[in-house]
């Protein structure tokens, strides 16, 4: 059957090229419009191609050209690629729109866009190429292009402000990761006939266990750099904070996912694990990442840095789910593996959507007030009501509050970890329990974190000295952010349509269908056709699981986690019905309350503060104060190095100022970055000791080297 995927792909690349050229040429205001227009069309094409693939289940493959020694370059849009491509296509339009709105608002439309546009389209093309590459060289080349292009965009404003170190750290780490991935591919493909993924997959069956471990660890950590996993993620907070707001939605929403794609492609599709060890490794690293990420997110007061740490947390959750899936598959529980992988992929999609939304929101806040410090914000809900609504949706989503999307994926992740009860090995079960507890703690801390973010930035009274900049006074909500907010809502309320779509890839990787177990066909099942056990169907019919069967398509609206014989249903939830009930309840309450209080007037009075003359901003809770309990409880992790507490006095009894400063080093910096950096510096110093400029010594070096070569020649 002829699908139009191929045409879409070709058209996509053609338009990318056009966009690249045109945006490099266009001038002034037109540049933005061209950028956005081409970008939107390209993203639409991405979504179309991926959508066709997912709905029809057909994959698309085409060979490109042949290079001697490296083999045949080909591209293949299979189910796994389709999911990632769809996500990218979902998030690119609002990201591009945001670029335009932000530049109009912040820079009055004056921004050096020529180079930006070129790099933007090149990046888009390289991302798609990564996702559809079917052989290692093409994959690696486009990966490297993507890294460099990302660096250029991260540093785009750094060259003006002079602070390029964060971007440089990112580039350095990306290169280190890239090298690890190259070595991983090299090990994997040692015995393969050529470098295409199919050949690698065939050859991987014969790999020894040690080689598999090597491939796994190198690939995991190499891709983990991009994904943001502990211990290779120390570039992420620095880089995200330094990235200009027009680029960061793409960086956080799309390029992060490439890390997951790499892990899944290499370690799940091509080189599947032999034992549970690798999966447990992934699970442990994921859980640790999640916990560390959310701890630093909760205690950080800069909005962008906080969101960077939160990205780390979400990456950890995704990787933990992937790890669980690997463990289940290696133990032979294909169904549990399918559920876990569904959870991981779902969370990846959700994360892209709400993280982009949140970063855009933060960009708006920075444009409107000029500051990102939560301690100085406050009271924005009254000044920017539209922004506060969409930002609230983003906060609720990331905090996993039903009926938004974060809830579904977080819930599925924890449910899949609970499936570990059926595993055999006690050590595995213990590790699962610990990681499950860590993830539950992470979820709770995430709620704390985002309650703090929303409350400190939007609610309360203004704490800082900033004034609202005129452009932001327009109350019109941004279409991009509304689009993402609606996407968050739909992804949360319609999980029974998303899971079958994700199932396409899950089936291939895990070997079992998640849809059958997670989304029972309440709409299509009847007692006669025995799609579900009649008693089961009857019970759920009484609970209302068939409501809407006449109107909505699909299998049903209930997500179910089934158990065994004794316990047929472990947990069932329906965000759709839940949301409907909630909306009905709120509506009824609102009607009753307005009717009951219609006669009474509402008087407005100033805030009650105990009778003091005026409630000053200094008297309202700060973000530091809010998160202080977390900082105190987890002091062992934060290990604040210096707490300066200088009290300046006029006389011993009178104090005029008490100065406090807290200096902390990030845990990962403390344990990895600084030791590695120190080791490298030590080694470099050692080597530098050899370069002292004395000619005699250099001659001696040459002689020694010559002797060494002769000896080696002799020996061999």
């Amino acid at each position, binding site marked *: 059957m002829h699908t139009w995927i191929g045409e879409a792909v070709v058209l996509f690349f053609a338009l990318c090229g056009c966009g690249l050229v045109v945006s490099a040429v266009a001038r002034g205001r037109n540049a933005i419009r061209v950028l956005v227009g081409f970008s939107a069309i390209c993203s639409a094409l991405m979504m179309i191609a991926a959508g066709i693939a997912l709905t029809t289940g057909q994959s698309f493959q085409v060979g490109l050209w042949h290079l001697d020694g490296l083999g045949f370059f080909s591209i293949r849009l299979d189910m796994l690629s389709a999911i990632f491509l769809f996500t990218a296509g979902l998030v690119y339009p609002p990201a591009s729109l945001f670029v335009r709105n932000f530049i109009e608002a912040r820079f009055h439309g004056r921004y050096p866009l020529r180079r930006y546009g070129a790099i933007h389209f090149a990046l888009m093309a390289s991302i798609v190429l990564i996702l559809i590459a079917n052989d290692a060289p093409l994959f690696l080349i486009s990966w490297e292009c993507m890294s460099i292009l990302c660096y250029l965009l991260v540093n785009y404003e750094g060259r003006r402000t002079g602070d390029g170190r964060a971007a440089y750290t990112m580039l350095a780490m990306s290169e280190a990761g890239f090298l690890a991935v190259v070595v991983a591919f090299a090990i994997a493909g040692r015995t393969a006939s050529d470098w295409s993924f199919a050949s690698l997959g065939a050859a991987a069956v014969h790999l020894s266990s040690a080689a598999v471990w090597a491939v796994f660890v190198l690939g995991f950590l190499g891709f983990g750099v991009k994904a943001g996993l502990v211990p290779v993620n120390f570039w992420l907070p620095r880089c995200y904070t330094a990235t200009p707001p027009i680029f960061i939605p793409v960086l956080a929403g799309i390029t992060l996912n490439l890390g997951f794609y790499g892990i899944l492609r290499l370690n799940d599709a091509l080189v599947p694990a032999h034992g549970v060890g690798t999966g447990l490794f992934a699970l442990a690293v994921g859980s640790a990442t999640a916990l560390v990420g959310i701890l630093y997110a909760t205690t950080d007061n800069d909005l962008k840095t906080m969101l960077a740490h939160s990205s780390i947390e979400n990456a950890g959750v995704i990787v933990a789910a992937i790890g669980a899936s690997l463990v289940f598959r290696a133990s032979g529980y294909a169904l549990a593996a399918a559920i876990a992988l569904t959870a991981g992929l779902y969370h990846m999609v959700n994360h892209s959507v709400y993280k982009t939304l949140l970063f855009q929101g933060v960009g708006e806040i920075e444009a409107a007030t000029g500051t990102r410090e939560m301690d100085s914000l406050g009271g924005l809900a009254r000044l920017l009501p539209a922004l506060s609504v969409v930002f609230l949706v983003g906060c609720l989503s990331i905090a996993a509050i039903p009926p938004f999307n974060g809830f579904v994926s977080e819930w599925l992740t924890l449910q899949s970890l609970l499936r570990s009860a059926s595993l055999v090995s006690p050590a595995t079960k213990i590790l699962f329990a610990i990681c499950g507890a860590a993830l539950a703690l992470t979820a709770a801390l995430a709620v704390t974190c985002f309650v703090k973010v929303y409350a400190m930035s939007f609610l309360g009274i203004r704490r800082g000295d900033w004034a609202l900049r005129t452009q932001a006074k327009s109350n019109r909500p941004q279409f991009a952010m509304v689009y993402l907010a609606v996407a968050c809502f739909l992804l949360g309320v319609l999980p029974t349509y998303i899971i079958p779509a994700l199932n396409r890839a899950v089936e291939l990787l895990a070997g079992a269908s998640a849809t059958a177990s997670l989304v029972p066909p309440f709409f299509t099942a009847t007692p006669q056709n025995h799609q579900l056990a009649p008693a089961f169907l009857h019970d759920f019919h009484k609970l209302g699981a068939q409501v809407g069967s006449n109107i909505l398509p699909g299998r049903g609206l209930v997500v179910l986690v089934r158990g065994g014989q004794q316990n047929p249903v472990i947990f069932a939830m329906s965000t759709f019905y839940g949301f409907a009930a909630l909306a009905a309840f709120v509506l009824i309450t609102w009607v009753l309350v307005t009717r009951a209080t219609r006669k009474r007037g509402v*008087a407005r*009075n*100033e805030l*009650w503060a*105990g*009778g003091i003359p005026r409630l000053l901003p200094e008297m309202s809770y700060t973000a530091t104060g809010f998160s202080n309990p977390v900082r105190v409880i987890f002091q062992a992790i934060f290990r604040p190095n210096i707490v300066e507490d200088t009290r300046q006095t006029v006389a011993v009894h009178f104090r005029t100022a008490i100065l406090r400063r807290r200096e902390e080093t990030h845990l990962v910096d403390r344990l990895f970055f600084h030791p590695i950096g120190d080791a490298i510096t030590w080694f470099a110093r050692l080597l530098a000791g050899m370069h002292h400029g004395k000619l005699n010594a250099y001659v001696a070096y040459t002689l020694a080297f010559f002797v060494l070569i002769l000896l080696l020649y002799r020996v061999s």
Partner: protein
Amino acid sequence: MSFWFWRGLKKGVQTTRYPRTAEVAAGVTPGRPITTDFRSVEAAVLAAGVCPVGAITARGKSAHVDLRLCIHCERCHFDGVRPLGWQADYEWATVPQGKPRYEPLPQAYGRSLHIIVVDAGDCGACLHEVKQLNNPLYNIHRLGMFFTASPRTADVLLVVGPVTENMRVPLLKTYEAMPDPKRVVAVGTCAVSGGIFGQSFVSAGGVSSVLPVDLEIPGDPAPPLAVLHGLLVVTGRKAAIRHEAVLERSA
């Protein structure tokens, strides 16, 4: 912890039965002077002269008591020669003079009254007496009355003290922060008429100079049962007595 549970049970019910029956235990109230007739005009004048704040005035052969000014020094009570009549009661809350019409709170508040107390320069005795209403011997909770911490949820503002200059603004803010319907009750002679501190450069001389007062409960201090009686008047569970009626009755 079970020690406290058993201890509480063992103590039994200690609460007064007021308002169902009058409380006659000794010491619940210091009592008050009442208008007394004397044998001659001179005797009345001499009896009235004992009062250091002029709460007793001689009219003909009787000495009239204006409880709003009484500071409970009890010199008139224990005067050996011409003691004034003394009544050991506590139901002496009155509606201020000059208030056109007294309206108790709607019936809905009868068993659900929330009170906020503001200390506007009180000596500590009236506030202490009001605090005693929370202890098991009086227990206003059984009557559905509660002290709240926020004026937003309060129905009655209870003010003690003559309203010092520094407390003027907080008191006004508290009043404005209360939603309608609300009532203001001045507890203690200082709050009613300024007491011994009177009107000075730091004292407003009573709550009525600052806020519209709905009920006055004099006394220095006003005993807890007098405050309780006042609160029952505010909710309409006891009849209100006008100050003019009290003065007329004594005339």
